[in-house]
């Protein structure tokens, strides 16, 4: 069942320019040039209930504008959004009671007082019945192990602790759909791991998550599906595994040898980086050259001291997609 349906979503806004030299600085005192920017351009996609979808894209790609429109904060210039039967910006008050939002960089907690007080404020704002509030808080407290944290002033908490509380804040009204905007930004590895485990746990219980992030690991660990946006347009929308397949079934092999590595000239193998005479990184198209066969041949011609085989890093894949968009699969 589709819980989110977006059709031909477009957002444009106006901006100003100014040059660098003294003359244009002076000129800009009186007059600024205007131009229209299309930050989201004819975007369509669907999300079934219970999915975790990752939205990826470089800075300024239109990710956060999209999230803002999905959360009802921004009006679209054109297009249609339907989430749980709501039109986000038209039925704002009913709609936002059904969603949770966590901004990695914008705190919803009140800085000078303990998170518990902020939670109580949300209880009133979201009109959560006292009994539900108590139960949910109890459960979330346990999940995050924050029982002793939430009574300390927010300003005294570490970023990781604060992020946990931001999550609790967003989950107290038990929303079926949760938007996460860079939820792990600035966190250390352990804190990131905890947050990811929590997202998975909530997902198992049926919550749908929409995640925007720079952190590809977030996507690799969490998302069943990725949506890549570049210059406001959708350039990819499918599974993560499919994204890898897009470049063909390739593997990265890193090779160290005791003697200088000579010419390696097999079909389906190319040297992607010659690090030194003794070390090289190869890109192997396993469709043309099976991994076993490659290992067999290479061990005959090169005196290997070390070898590692890896997947193509996702940065590379996405980088290549930005350069040449693929039709949505």
């Amino acid at each position, binding site marked *: 069942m589709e819980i989110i349906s977006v059709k031909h979503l477009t957002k444009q*806004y106006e901006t100003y320019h100014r040059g660098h030299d003294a003359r244009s600085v002076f000129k800009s005192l009186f007059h600024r040039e205007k131009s229209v920017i299309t930050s989201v351009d004819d975007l369509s996609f669907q999300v079934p209930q219970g999915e975790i979808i990752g939205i990826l894209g470089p800075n300024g790609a239109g990710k956060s*504008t999209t999230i803002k429109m999905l*959360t009802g*904060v921004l009006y679209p210039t054109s297009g249609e959004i339907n989430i749980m039967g709501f039109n986000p910006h038209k039925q704002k008050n009913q709609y*936002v009671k059904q969603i949770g939002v966590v*901004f990695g960089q914008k*705190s919803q907690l009140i800085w*000078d007082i303990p998170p518990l*007080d902020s939670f109580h404020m949300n209880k009133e704002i979201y009109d959560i019945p006292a009994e539900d509030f108590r139960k949910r808080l109890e459960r979330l407290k346990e999940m995050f192990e924050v029982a002793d944290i939430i009574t300390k002033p927010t300003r005294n908490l570490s970023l990781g602790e604060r992020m946990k509380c931001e999550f609790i804040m967003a989950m107290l009204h038990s929303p079926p759909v949760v938007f996460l905007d860079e939820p792990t930004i600035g966190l250390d590895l352990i804190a990131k791991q905890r947050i990811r485990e929590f997202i998975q746990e909530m997902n198992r219980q049926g919550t749908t998550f929409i995640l925007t992030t720079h952190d590809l690991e977030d996507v690799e660990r969490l998302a069943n599906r990725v949506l890549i946006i570049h210059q406001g347009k959708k350039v990819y929308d499918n599974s993560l595994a499919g994204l890898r397949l897009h470049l063909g079934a390739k593997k990265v092999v890193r090779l160290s040898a005791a003697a200088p590595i000579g010419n390696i000239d097999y079909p389906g193998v190319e040297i992607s980086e010659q690090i030194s005479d003794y070390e090289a990184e190869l890109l192997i198209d396993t469709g043309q050259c099976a991994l076993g066969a490659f290992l067999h041949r290479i061990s005959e011609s090169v005196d290997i001291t070390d070898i590692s085989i890896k997947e193509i890093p996702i940065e590379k894949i996405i980088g290549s997609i930005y350069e040449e968009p693929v039709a949505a699969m």
Partner: protein
Amino acid sequence: MKRLLRIYRVCVMANLATAVSYRMNFLLNCLITLIGNVLFPLVTVIIYNSNASFAGWTFHEALLIQAVFILSTACASMLFNGIMWSTMSHVVEGSLEVLLIKPAPGLFLLLAQAFNIESIGLLTGGLVIFGYALGGVGGMSLVTWLLFLLLFAAGLLVMLGVVLIVAAISFKWVANSRLPEMFESVKAFGRYPGTIFPRMLVAISSFIFPVSMIAFFPASALIGRWKGYHLAAILPCLLFAGFGVWLYNRMLHSYKSAGG
């Protein structure tokens, strides 16, 4: 309505909790706003000490007007000035979303969170000066007291209107921290006996930008020196505050369609 009251109460409690957790800071801020605002009548004191005066007004009468001005400022900063500051910082930091994703009217949430107990010091200082000035004037009766309260409330509406208009403009005129100064400067016309200004300015400060209602009209009413047009000026005060609410909501609306 009941839900809004509950939200408001929670926000007030949160502000009290903040004040308690930053006790020292709270006390110092109380003191500084008190000194800053109480210094203002100093000019009046100095003028009267130099054997000069505002034509037609005794020292205590002039002081009474300024005490009412301080009281109005104190109420405004306790109840709603925070709307201006939080709007500005939300716009600058691009964090207005945090407010807009909540299932309650944005302006109401801002109002609830604007409550600031720090102005209690200023309120106390204003009351002391008010009391002192009252000791030297006459003409009060139950009727003038009621009239005073009515006009004072209308003056607060003007203060609210100013806050909302400044906050609304800050959506478009981003990061202009001096914007409040413009409105602050116009308020000065309400701090002095209106009779020292020419008719043209009196008309403007009574009916167009009704700053006279902040202090001059209520104080004159209290000592029985009120005129009919003081009462008529209540209507422009209502319109002024209404305009502020309308403008603010419009900006909130256009923020959503413009984005950034």
